[in-house]
């Protein structure tokens, strides 16, 4: 007997490209960045990598990275 179970499989993009939610996008100025790692550490969605590149397909534009950056190296820029 085989039971029918609702089992989901892990997949990137399981909630769609959440980058489309943004009205402002965070942009990092690498000249100001001191590589402290705060933006990577505090991003709730893990959309900043350890080299501080932002994945714009998924970044939701919450702005937390801007707030936790001690060097004011990240600014929110309005999406076109």
């Amino acid at each position: 007997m085989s039971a029918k179970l609702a089992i989901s499989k892990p997949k990137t993009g399981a909630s769609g490209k959440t980058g489309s939610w943004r009205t402002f996008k965070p942009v990092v100025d690498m000249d100001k960045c001191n590589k402290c790692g705060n933006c990577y550490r505090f991003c709730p969605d893990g959309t900043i990598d350890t080299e501080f590149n932002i994945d714009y397909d998924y970044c939701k534009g919450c702005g937390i990275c801007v707030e936790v950056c001690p060097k004011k190296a990240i600014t929110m820029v309005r999406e076109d």
Partner: protein
Amino acid sequence: MAEIPDEEFILKTTSACAGCSASLILRYVTKAAGKDTVLVVPACCTSVIQGVYPNTAMNIPVYNVAFASAAAVASGMSEAFRAVGKKTNVICFAGDGGTVDIGIQALSGALERGTDFLYICYDNEAYSNTGMQRSGATPLGASTTTTPLGKKDYKKDLDAIVQAHNPVYMATACSAYPVDLYNKVKKALSIPGPKFMHILAPCPPGWRYPSEKTIEVGKLAVQSGMWVLYERENGKLSISGASKAAMKKRIPVSEYLKVQGRFKTATEEDISVLSEHVENNIKKLEREVEGIC
């Protein structure tokens, strides 16, 4: 102190709101727990943010279960793993509604039976997933959709209820302090038996503050003493890093309240009751640390 691994166990991305602290908490809980883990999740935001069937953002096994059953399910699951010699971590990840109100009997039973698991309550202080109705964990003075003029009752003291079961380990944490949170989850999972963590989880739409303020709001909760970070190992209390300073000197509770729209309806009397509550709680914890209780 262990290095926090760069590996992520939640794939980009869940459908949680922008700036959701529960997502940040999940990121660190899963980093601390690692691959050999099952999350047991009752109805809450975490059960709906995982993705659209047949896909999920969760790259570790998750068992989504009925509201009242999380700790009972975890109990059976843990027994089954141990019976076949597996050390797999069993972690309940439940909201405040699913813990302080609906899941409390199952939690009490699992703690009493000595279940080898970790129960985490992420506390956004309301039934957020269904539109922010009041829960037993909503603080006095906060407006929700069912308390539009501000809640008139106190927040239920969940930690005192859990403490009465004498779990081997219990701790509080907050999303604004992810390293502290990570270390506590690690420690909890290294000890056999029933463990409990209560994690404050600021929620931008529910608490009505802009999404970028999630870390600041969590820090204000700790700096004002509205939330105290501590651990209890075999009953012995120790206050954690960021709360040590707040035990001595605190910012006014109003500094925490005024950045949140949900406290717009709080009266002067509400604020003084909350402040008094903070002072009494700090005194009680101080006495316990000094061994006078």
